C-alpha cells in the first residue's frame, strides 16, 4: 500500500501532538490537503488556521515559537517557500526560532493543478538560508521518523512532503538518522543518489543495471542540509561517477548540493537528473515525471551511457 508522505505527516502529527503539549499546528486553508486536519480535529485548541495568508502563517509561527511552542507550519511547498520566503528568512532563520515548516505538494507530482503549483525550486531556496535544516523523506517509514526527529531537535526545519503515494523502501527495522545518508545498495561502477520518491526509482534502475552487468551503488539522501559529506565523498572516490535524481530543478537542489561536496573534495562527473530549469504544467503525475526523465528507465539508460564511455 503506497502512502504519501503528506499522509505520514498527518498521522505522525496526531501522535506527536498527544505526546507533547507544546506542539501546535498552523495551516493556510489547506488542511484537507496537507493532512493537518486530523490534528485540528483532535487538538482544536492547538490548531491555528491563518487562512490564505502564508506570510502571516510563518510570522505567527515565529511568534508562537518565542513562547516555547513547537509550531508546525503547513501549506503547499510553492507558497510556503515562495510567498513567505522573506518571513522565513527574517523571522525564523535569522533569529533561529524553533519552527518546523512541513510543506506538502512539492515537485511535479502535484499534477493537474499545473505549473503555478508545482514547486521545483523549494529545496534551492531553503538551502540558501543559514540555520535551516532540510529533510526530504523517501517513504512513510522515513517520514514518520524524520518528522519526530524534527519535532525533537532545536531550530528551523524544512520538511519536503509529497502528494503522491510512494512505495516503502525502508522497513520498521530501519532508523532515520538526521544528517546521514543511507547506503541502500553496494556497488563500485557508479553511484546513483536519490531523494524523496526518486530513491525508489534509483533502486529499480540499479536492479536493471545489475542485469546488464553494471554494479551501481544506491544512496538515499534525505537530509539535504546539513548533507552527509562522508558518504558522498566515499562514493566519489570509490565509484568515480555519480548520478543524482530529484523531483526538483537541477539548479540548487540535491544535485547541486552533491556537486558542492564533490568539487570541493574529490571532483568527479556528476550527472543531475531532474527538472531542467523549466516550469511544470498540467498532467498526471506519471506523465510529468516521464516528460522530465524522472523514471527508472531514464536513470538506467543514463547510468549505462556514463559507465560505457
Amino acid at each position, binding site marked *: 500500500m503506497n502512502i504519501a508522505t503528506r499522509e505520514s505527516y498527518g498521522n505522525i502529527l496526531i501522535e506527536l501532538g498527544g505526546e507533547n503539549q507544546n506542539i*501546535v499546528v498552523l495551516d493556510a486553508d489547506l488542511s484537507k490537503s496537507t493532512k493537518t486536519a486530523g490534528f485540528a480535529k483532535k487538538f482544536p*485548541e*492547538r490548531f*491555528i488556521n*491563518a*487562512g490564505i*495568508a502564508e*506570510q*502571516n502563517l*510563518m*510570522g*505567527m*509561527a*515565529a*511568534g*508562537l*515559537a*518565542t*513562547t*516555547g*511552542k513547537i*509550531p508546525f507550519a503547513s501549506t503547499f511547498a510553492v507558497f510556503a517557500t515562495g510567498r513567505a520566503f*522573506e*518571513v522565513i528568512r*527574517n*523571522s525564523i532563520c*535569522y*533569529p*533561529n526560532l524553533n519552527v518546523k515548516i512541513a510543506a506538502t505538494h512539492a515537485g511535479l507530482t502535484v499534477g493537474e493543478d499545473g505549473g503555478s503549483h508545482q514547486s521545483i525550486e523549494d529545496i534551492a531556496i531553503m538551502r540558501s538560508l543559514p540555520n535551516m535544516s532540510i529533510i526530504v523523506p523517501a517513504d512513510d517509514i522515513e517520514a514518520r521518523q524524520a518528522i519526530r526527529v524534527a519535532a525533537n531537535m532545536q531550530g528551523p526545519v524544512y520538511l519536503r512532503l509529497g502528494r503522491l503515494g510512494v512505495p516503502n523502501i525502508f522497513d520498521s527495522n530501519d532508523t532515520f538518522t538526521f544528517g546521514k545518508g543511507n547506503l541502500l545498495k553496494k556497488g563500485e561502477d557508479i553511484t546513483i543518489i536519490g531523494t524523496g520518491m526518486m530513491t525508489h526509482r534509483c533502486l529499480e534502475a540499479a536492479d536493471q543495471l545489475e542485469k546488464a552487468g553494471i554494479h551501481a551503488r544506491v544512496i538515499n539522501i534525505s537530509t539535504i542540509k546539513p548533507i552527509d559529506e562522508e558518504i558522498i565523498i566515499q562514493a566519489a572516490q570509490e565509484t568515480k561517477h555519480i548520478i543524482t535524481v530529484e523531483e526538483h530543478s537541477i539548479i540548487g537542489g540535491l544535485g547541486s548540493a552533491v556537486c558542492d561536496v564533490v568539487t570541493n573534495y574529490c571532483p568527479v562527473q556528476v550527472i543531475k537528473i531532474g527538472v531542467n530549469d523549466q516550469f511544470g504544467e498540467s498532467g498526471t503525475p506519471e506523465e510529468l515525471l516521464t516528460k522530465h526523465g524522472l523514471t527508472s528507465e531514464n536513470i538506467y539508460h543514463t547510468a549505462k551511457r556514463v559507465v560505457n564511455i
Partner: protein
Amino acid sequence: MKVMKIYANELRMHIINMLTESGSGHPGGSLSAAELLIYLYFKEMNIDSNDKDNANRDRFILSKGHAAPVLYGTLAMKGFFNINELKNLRKMGSFLQGHPDMKKVPGVDMSTGSLGQGFSAAVGVGLGCKMDKKTYRVYTLLGDGELQEGIVWEAAMAASHYKLDNLVAIIDNNGLQIDGTNNEVMKVNPLKEKWESFGWKVIEINGHCFNDMEAAFAIAKQTKGQPTVIIAKTSKGKGVSFMEDQVGWHGVVPSEAERVRAIEELGKAMGSL
C-alpha cells in the same frame, strides 16, 4: 508624569548621542516614539530586568525595528544592560545590531527590522499566551508607513478573528516615511476606519501625552473579545527643532555639530521640566 517627561528627555539625548557615534541609523522615527517607550517600560508593562526570561512577563515587539535606538535607550535606562554599551550601536561585534536581534540583546522579545513581521509575530505571541491560558499582555509598535505592508493586514485580520484581547498595537503616526509623507508616497488613511473595519478597538491619542496614554491603555485592558490599536499622533524627530516633522531625518544621523545643537536644546528642555 514629570518623572516620565524627564525620562523621555533623557532617552532623546541617548538616541542623539548613540546615532552620531554610530554614524548611521534612524533618528526621526526613534525620537517620535520616546514617550511611548518610556510609558510602556516604566508604567504599563509587567517586566523586570532582573528576571528577563520570566514566562509570565509582558512582551513588547518593536515592529518598526529601525527605531532600535529608542528601544535600546529604554532597555538600558531600565537596567537590561549597561548604558555605556549604547555608544557601540551598529559597531561590528556589538550586541546592539542595526535592527533588534533577540539572540543578542537582553530584553528584546523578537528580532525585527523587516516591516510588518514583528506585528505578525506579536499575533503569534498573543496566540501562544491564550493557548497557555496565561494573562500577560503583548504590546507592539508599528510605523504608519509600515501599514503599507500586506502582512500587516493579514495579521490584523487574524488578531481579530482569534479575539486577541491580550494584544495592543500602537501606531507611531508621524505621517512621514522615506520618500515623502505617507500621503505623497502611498496613502494609508483613514486609519481609524480601517482598523475598526478589521475588528479592532481603536483609540486615538496624542503620542507625546502621558495622560492620553494612561487612559488609552486602561481602556485596552478592559476591552474584551477584540484586540486594541492605539493610533498615536506624533511628530517625527520630536524634541529636536531642526528634525521635527522633517522627511529628511528618517535615516540620516546628526553630525557632531548637529549633535551638540540637539543636546543643547534637549538640555534646555530638561531644565524647564
